[in-house]
């Protein structure tokens, strides 16, 4: 069983190297963003590990000054879900400053997180979308 898992890992790594090796170098410092999201969807219960992986990607991207679109916002949301609304707002603001296209959504996120903090004090997060806006 363990052997098979190892083989699987080796083969998929080789395939990944093959499919991505021939691609030209990337514009942004994504790190292992796609596999981080994949693992997050595979094991959604591992919230802290997901947060930690995103943190690593953010740090590396900032060191290279090539942060991809959406990364700060995704990290901000993970922080919020892990009960850290203050830092979450900081990253929503970062996203908005770097990417003006995110302005409408980030304004909304910041406003909703603040509102929730005011009404609930510092209790556990539920979700920042609960607002007046509906999609239908």
């Amino acid at each position, binding site marked *: 069983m363990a052997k098979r898992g190892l083989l699987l890992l080796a083969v998929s790594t080789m395939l990944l190297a093959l499919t991505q090796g021939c691609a030209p170098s990337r*514009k942004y410092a994504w790190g292992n963003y796609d596999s981080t999201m994949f693992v997050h969807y595979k094991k959604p219960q591992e919230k802290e590990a997901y947060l930690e992986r995103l943190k690593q990607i953010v740090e590396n991207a900032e060191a290279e000054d090539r942060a991809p679109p*959406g990364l700060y916002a995704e990290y901000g*949301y993970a922080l919020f879900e892990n009960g850290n609304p203050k830092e979450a707002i900081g990253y929503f603001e970062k996203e908005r400053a770097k990417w003006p296209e995110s302005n409408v959504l980030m304004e909304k996120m910041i406003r909703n997180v603040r509102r929730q903090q005011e009404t609930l004090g510092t209790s556990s997060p539920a979700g920042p979308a609960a607002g007046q806006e509906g*999609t239908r």
Partner: protein
Amino acid sequence: MKRSSIPILVAVFASALFSGCAATVPKKDYSAFKAADPHSILIVPVVNRSVDVNAPDYFLSTLSIPVAERGYYVFPVDLVKHLLELDGLADADLVHNADPLKLCSLFGTDSVLYVCIERWDAKYMVFTTQVTVEFDYQLKDCKTGGVIWAERKGMVYSPQQSQSSGNPLADLVAMAISAAITKGMPNYMPLAHQVNGQVFASPKSGGLPAGPYLPDYRKDYDQ
């Protein structure tokens, strides 16, 4: 005399080759795309028409990078997914059937990318496993709600074809091994990455034109 005729011959062959290719791949009309001129793309959750319940989330994880690398602002897919769930659109089918213009104003995006998984399956044979994926992509404009770019692409992976060592016995062993591996848990991800890479690559092959964050912006499609 003889020497100079060679380059001409080569040129004739080359042009025959090129025109031959061009004839088989019909050119896409990018006029609607040009008029819309999107700067940002909202990737909404993926609709699943395969039997694999995990496929939509797994595939969603592969989309941000190739789209953003084409020079567009791409919204954070996981955050978007959660917001939609909290707004009562937990099901991707509901999202795809909702009014695109409402999604647009909710997120402040220029365009929305809708992706459907048509195929995501594995066929088991004696010595190999054939893995097949197929996706349907549609980009809708937020000014009109109309489709400004669409593509459908599938790909088949069979370890048998790509791993020939020239030694039949060794090949047989390799096949048996890879069949066992893929039987345990077929790995669709490399194939999914490859399809995305080809689909979004360049308007020359029907892909996405370069967005505002690329130097090729407004230059890489035919007038």
